[in-house]
């Protein structure tokens, strides 16, 4: 019984450690980054596929919806050019997020976000009213919660996936999601506690 209790305690500690330690990039992802650094476009394409939702969410938190896709391509173009200068392949996710934030900040500084959409935006690209309202409410939240919530609610990433791709601790992501969702409920007048 004492051995079982000790074993259970160790297991709980391991689970807690695994859940709340900063995620270590999977070996295959480090390989992808290393390969992409050397110019392997296949590897970069796979990174693009994995990280596009993260970048898109970061951009959505700051720029107009219709600009996010254009900016996303710009972020990856910049990342591709700058990748040889990335020293730690394991830091790719956080590094990419910083590039996205910088691009969004540059874009925001140089443009006024008009309320009216330009005429050449296709009709089916205009978000529905409920989506616009929710997006506006998320953008009004503290920055700490904004990106994480967009990654979860718009891009469909789970908390562990968000942690793995941004370099944040899983515990931090969980807190951001929980508190951010609480503020969002109040802001949108949702009833569920």
């Amino acid at each position: 019984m004492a051995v079982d209790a000790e074993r259970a305690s160790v297991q709980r500690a391991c689970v807690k450690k695994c859940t709340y330690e900063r995620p270590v990039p999977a070996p295959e992802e480090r390989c992808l980054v290393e390969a992409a650094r050397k110019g392997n476009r296949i590897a970069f394409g796979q990174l693009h596929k994995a990280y596009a939702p993260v970048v898109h969410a970061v951009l959505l938190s700051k720029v107009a919806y219709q600009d996010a896709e254009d900016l996303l391509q710009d972020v990856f173009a910049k990342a591709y050019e700058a990748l040889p200068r990335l020293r730690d392949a394991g830091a790719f996710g956080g590094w990419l997020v910083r590039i996205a934030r910088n691009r969004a900040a540059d874009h925001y500084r140089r443009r006024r976000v008009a309320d009216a959409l330009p005429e050449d935006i296709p009709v089916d690209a205009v978000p529905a009213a409920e989506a616009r309202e929710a997006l506006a409410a998320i953008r009004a939240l503290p920055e700490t919660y904004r990106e994480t919530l967009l990654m979860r609610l718009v891009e469909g990433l789970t908390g562990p996936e968000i942690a793995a791709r941004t370099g944040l601790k899983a515990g931090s992501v969980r807190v951001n999601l929980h508190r951010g969702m609480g503020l969002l409920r109040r802001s949108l007048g949702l009833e569920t506690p």
Partner: protein
Amino acid sequence: MTTDDYLWDKTGDPDPDVVRLEEALGDLRHVGAPRRPPARRTWLLPLIAVAAVLVIGFVLLLQDPPAPDAWTYTRTDDDGTHDGSLVVGDWLETRPGETARLKIADIGHLTLDPESRLRLHATHQSGHRVELARGRIEALVAAPPRLFVVDTAVATAIDMGCAYALEVDDDGNGRLDVRVGMVYLERDGFESRVPAGARCLMRRGGIGTPHFPGATHVLREELHHFDTSGMDAPRFRRLLTAARSADTLTLWHLVPRTIGMARASVVDRITELSKLPDEVSRSGLLAGEETALNACWDALRWTWR
């Protein structure tokens, strides 16, 4: 398990508010695949026959994973739709009144207009290339930059993640209109960067200078003269005078295409029309330095829409 678990990793009892927000916001998601092509609203798409081809091979570096060697397509005419498969090396030709919509592997699609001819040269995870021999295509690509390339007799169009229309005629003259994202036109080391909303003409003699269709008639006329006949000082001054804020796209391209006093006048005009940040070096622009040009590009590009 609690509803908080659902917010965390989608396990446990679904949280109704989270589910509702997921459904409302899901349409904003980056899906990594092209959405339906935008409805034609304001673009004018005159057909011009002919094109030439080219293709740039992408180098396969570390891996050579298996990939399909054909694209699927659907032809549409008055009789209905017909599906087919375009194998690498084969041509696809459309008749009058017929269009064909091709899937560019898993990164996008292109539409081949009537009386057009296209060949698939390569399709692989490391790159996809086609030859447009005649007619017009509209492409919509959601992929890393430089993964999709179209060659014509005059220039190579390199997709940087976007939607665009490319057409060429029998003499190799053509036009590129970019709707979303960016396309680079390259020839013999010469480059034109064509962003969303802009146009670039191509001709046997080389690649034109990108401009916005809404530029004044004077600017377009003088730009055409510059592109086809070279420098004429009085006409060049008229071009610069006719330039407005949005025309800094055109002026940026004129920096490396001019020298001496002409280049200085271009840089001065850019500075008059747009406040450049300190990191854009005037001396670097006058020297045609790549760093300065790229910094200037980064400063200007978001003022063009």
